[in-house]
């Protein structure tokens, strides 16, 4: 109970801070909506292949997470509060708290962008349940890995370029599988025969959380 309330303290602090500044949410949403509109105007109804549609959606979500998720620790570093966190919180408490904040952020962005994408591309997803599970499990994996990477890059000078460079190879598997699974969910035939894709995304999320928790202490205390 004690541990949960400590994690909640980190979440509460970040939610209040984000509610007042709205920096991460606004920048992610603006990026997503702008790129979505540009893509839909330039391609129009010419993209009919579900796999291509899925790839477009995930490219937008992937780059928006590249923009907004590193904020978790970059803001702490820029505002001089990283040492306050070090002196106040245990590493795992910070990791879980920040990961949940990133997950909330990504969920809000996905929940707004996906319906907008389906409307602009005139898609009526035949298997919304499969799509929601895909998006949710990919979001957990992305959040866990991005939280760890954001703590690593926060102390670097060239953090803007370093984050995508570090994230690209680590996030590639989840990105490719999420595209594949989303593509299956947009086909008329049942996607549940491909549930191994969901198992992969769930395993990636678990490895991301466990590996992130174990490695985070070394990054945070340095």
């Amino acid at each position, binding site marked *: 109970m004690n541990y949960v309330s*400590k994690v909640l*303290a980190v979440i*509460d602090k970040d939610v209040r*801070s984000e509610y007042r500044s709205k920096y991460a949410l606004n920048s992610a949403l603006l990026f997503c909506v702008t790129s979505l509109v540009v893509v839909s105007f330039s391609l129009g109804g010419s993209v009919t292949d579900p796999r291509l549609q899925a790839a477009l959606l995930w490219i937008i979500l992937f780059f928006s997470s590249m923009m907004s998720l590193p904020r978790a620790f970059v803001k702490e570093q820029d*505002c001089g*509060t990283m*040492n306050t966190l*070090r*002196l106040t919180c245990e590493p795992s408490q910070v990791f879980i708290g920040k990961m949940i904040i990133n997950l909330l952020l990504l969920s809000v962005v996905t929940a707004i962008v996906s319906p907008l994408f389906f409307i602009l591309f005139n898609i009526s997803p035949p298997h919304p349940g499969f799509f929601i599970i895909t998006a949710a499990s990919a979001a957990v994996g992305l959040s866990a890995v991005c939280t760890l990477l954001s703590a690593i890059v926060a102390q670097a000078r060239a953090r803007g370029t370093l984050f995508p460079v570090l994230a690209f190879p680590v996030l590639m598997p989840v990105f490719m599988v999420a595209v594949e699974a989303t593509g299956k969910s947009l086909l008329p035939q049942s996607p549940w025969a491909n549930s191994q894709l969901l198992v992969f995304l769930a395993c990636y999320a678990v490895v991301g959380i466990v590996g992130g928790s174990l490695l985070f202490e070394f990054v945070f205390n*340095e």
Partner: protein
Amino acid sequence: MASCLESIKVESVTKRFGPNQVLDGITFDASAGESYCLWGPNGSGKSTLLKIIAGLLRPSKGKISYCASGKTGAPLTFRNNIGMSAPDIMMYEDLSLAENLDFLAKARALPRDARFEDELMDKFSLSGVKGRQLGACSSGMKRKFHLVCALAHKPSALLLDEPTSYMDDAGRAGAEEIVSSLKKDVILIVATNDHAEKAWCEAAIELRIKSAGGNR
């Protein structure tokens, strides 16, 4: 308060930043009730040593160990015992003063003494601005609040880096009064250039500017 800290051992601490040697074999042992001043000119490594003692920087050589209830460990394993105030350790400017104190208390999950917090806020004349966002406060108010945050959880090691800089006379007097009343129970280490702050401490550790080739 977390379990009381008995001593802090600083053993042969050396710190280099690239070719620049900042600290060279600093050794001392501070026990509860003792107070030390890290004294020296700008660039002599006072703040660096204080951060190493707090566990925020890793020494190039040597080690810091904290001892409490027979257990010995690295500084950050005793983070709930440490109260630190330094010019580059900030609080959250998007949050109000009350929200900052709430966060610290909840994140530490230690028993909270609201009366003591109120006393500290009163002493620094901050009670009236509790609901104000920290970012909207003056530099002096921020420094006072940082000191309140360092003291609010009743730490048994108080690490203060130029604690009264930017403060007005009333703030300085309040800080001196509070620190004097607490220092018999805590390990107090103050890094400063200010003679008034130096007078808070019983002993001084003098640091000198080093260069790559040795003492300048």
